[in-house]
């Protein structure tokens, strides 16, 4: 029972990271009409930025600022590329997926060549924090708590923005019908650019929380995370924000449980087998696609 509770806490913390990732990914899909496969690579490069700044200073505020800034910059830099694709080829989601795969290849190779000689980086203990609570086998680390709390707060703010502000109404209107939104005077390009900004902020927050949770980063991390993000998004139903919340959390818990009871190397495979079975049974996703 102790292992179960410990893994459940760890799973919810990991799940909240997946929720943040899937939320950002779905926002891009709904508003900008693109599949941003390179989004997790942007998160990983922000993690590397945090690590780099931590080598220079202990000031956590500066580290957080640097992580979020890099994520925003990279996200906004990708906007003209995707805008060109969607403007010349209509709304071609496949083309955006291919281009973002190219971006992911570039970012991954740059990280594996240039940063720390391609070796994984480890975050200092003072960044991760020690154990907060410990009852027998049950331990709750500060990293887990930060990931959990940070994830909940970020998602709550995001959903407040989406459902309680004018900007959020613009987002939802574009997601529902791009042309109708344009006809009623919603600034499509401006709103689209703002969505890249929001996704950049979410990416930066994800990077900070993820680095606190797992304590390391490697050039290949983005590849795994991208796969999980896409899988969660498809299991939930492409573009389904609420479905993404549920499935992201479930994936985190499932993965943590597998890690607790099965050999480490098999734990990821178990989560993928479950997702594969769901996709094969329900190709449109559990909650239905919004695209």
């Amino acid at each position, binding site marked *: 029972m102790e292992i179960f509770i410990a893994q459940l806490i760890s799973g919810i913390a990991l799940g909240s990271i997946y929720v943040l990732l899937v939320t950002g990914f779905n926002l891009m899909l709904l508003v900008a009409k693109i*599949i941003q496969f390179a989004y997790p690579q942007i998160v990983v490069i922000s993690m590397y930025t945090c690590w780099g700044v931590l080598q220079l200073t202990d000031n956590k505020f500066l580290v957080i600022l640097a992580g979020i800034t890099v994520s925003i910059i990279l996200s906004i830099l990708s906007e003209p*590329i995707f805008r*060109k*694709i969607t403007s*010349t*080829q209509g709304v*071609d*989601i*496949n*083309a955006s*997926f*291919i*281009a973002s*795969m*190219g*971006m*992911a*290849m*570039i970012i*991954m*190779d*740059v990280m594996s*060549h240039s940063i720390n000689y391609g070796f994984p980086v480890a975050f200092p203990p003072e960044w991760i924090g020690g154990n907060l609570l410990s009852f027998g086998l049950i331990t709750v680390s500060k990293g887990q708590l930060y990931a959990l709390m940070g994830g909940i707060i970020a998602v709550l703010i995001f959903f407040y923005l989406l459902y309680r502000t004018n900007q959020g109404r613009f987002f939802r209107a574009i997601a529902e019908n791009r042309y109708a939104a344009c006809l009623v005077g919603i600034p499509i390009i401006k709103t689209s650019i703002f969505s890249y900004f929001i996704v950049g902020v979410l990416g930066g927050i994800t990077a900070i929380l993820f680095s606190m949770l797992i304590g390391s980063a490697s050039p*290949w991390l983005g*590849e795994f995370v991208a*796969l999980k993000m*896409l*899988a969660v998004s*498809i299991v939930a139903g*492409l573009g389904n924000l609420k479905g993404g919340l549920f499935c992201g959390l479930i994936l985190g818990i499932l993965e943590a449980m597998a890690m607790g009871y099965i*050999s480490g*190397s*098999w734990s*990821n*495979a178990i989560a*993928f*087998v479950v*997702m*594969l079975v769901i*996709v*094969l*049974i329900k*190709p*449109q996703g559990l909650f239905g*696609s919004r695209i």
Partner: protein
Amino acid sequence: MSEVLYYFLGFTAIYILMGWALYLPYRVGQLHFLIVACMAVTAYFGGFAAREWGWPFILLLLVGISIGAIIAFVFSQAIGKAPCFTVVIVGLTSVFIVKTVIENWELLGGTIGFFHIPTVKYLLPIIYILLLIVGFLIYKIDHSRLGRAASVVFVDREVAVSLGIDIKKLGMFFQIIACAIAGMAGILDAFFVNSVSPEFFTFSMISYLMCILFVGGYTTMWGVILSAFILQGIPLLFPSEVASWRQVIYGALLVIIILIRPEGLISRKMLWGLKPKFSFNNK
């Protein structure tokens, strides 16, 4: 023949086969990465059966094709007419699951790989003969009713349904042919390199295949041939310092081609332009 040229020609042919395996399901708008999982399965099976059980190459080639086709048949029951990204995720998760199984299976060499697969005489000419046969079959499919039906499905699924095209059966057909080709490519790869490693079947390989398909052009089978030779040649043409950044080069090529020439280097329109034009007025 020099060793470099030998490997260049061999790998290029294997990648052309894999590029075609990706090209076929994309005719109906599906990015079918299950081909990479099929290639991994047959490469390991072929290597193991040849080394441990002494199975002959020709038999393994047939078994490889059959394994690929059977795997695809089973999966295509569920994803025959599934949307593109459902097919993508089925492929990606399958690759990851197969890789995890291989890495944890000591009998197959685990993370190190499987070595000392017997050599086959005249393998390079055999690979090119098979390439010609597969190429001819794909050409025939492309220029048949099936090929034209696939083009309609790619452009508009609703129109295809109204024309009486069975999208699921068509998707299943292309997926099965693609995985059979990938199964064959797996056997050829295992015998060509005399070893198999799980490191070969990763995201890098999927990205590379995407580059081959989309840089060359996804609307005709000829684009894959052109881009496989170009992309395979890049590491040989440039100094090693530049060649080590080939993933960046491939990634940049992919982004640039989507931006400036979305249909790839060789498009169907371009081929129509090259065809001689006949007119009844000309004498």
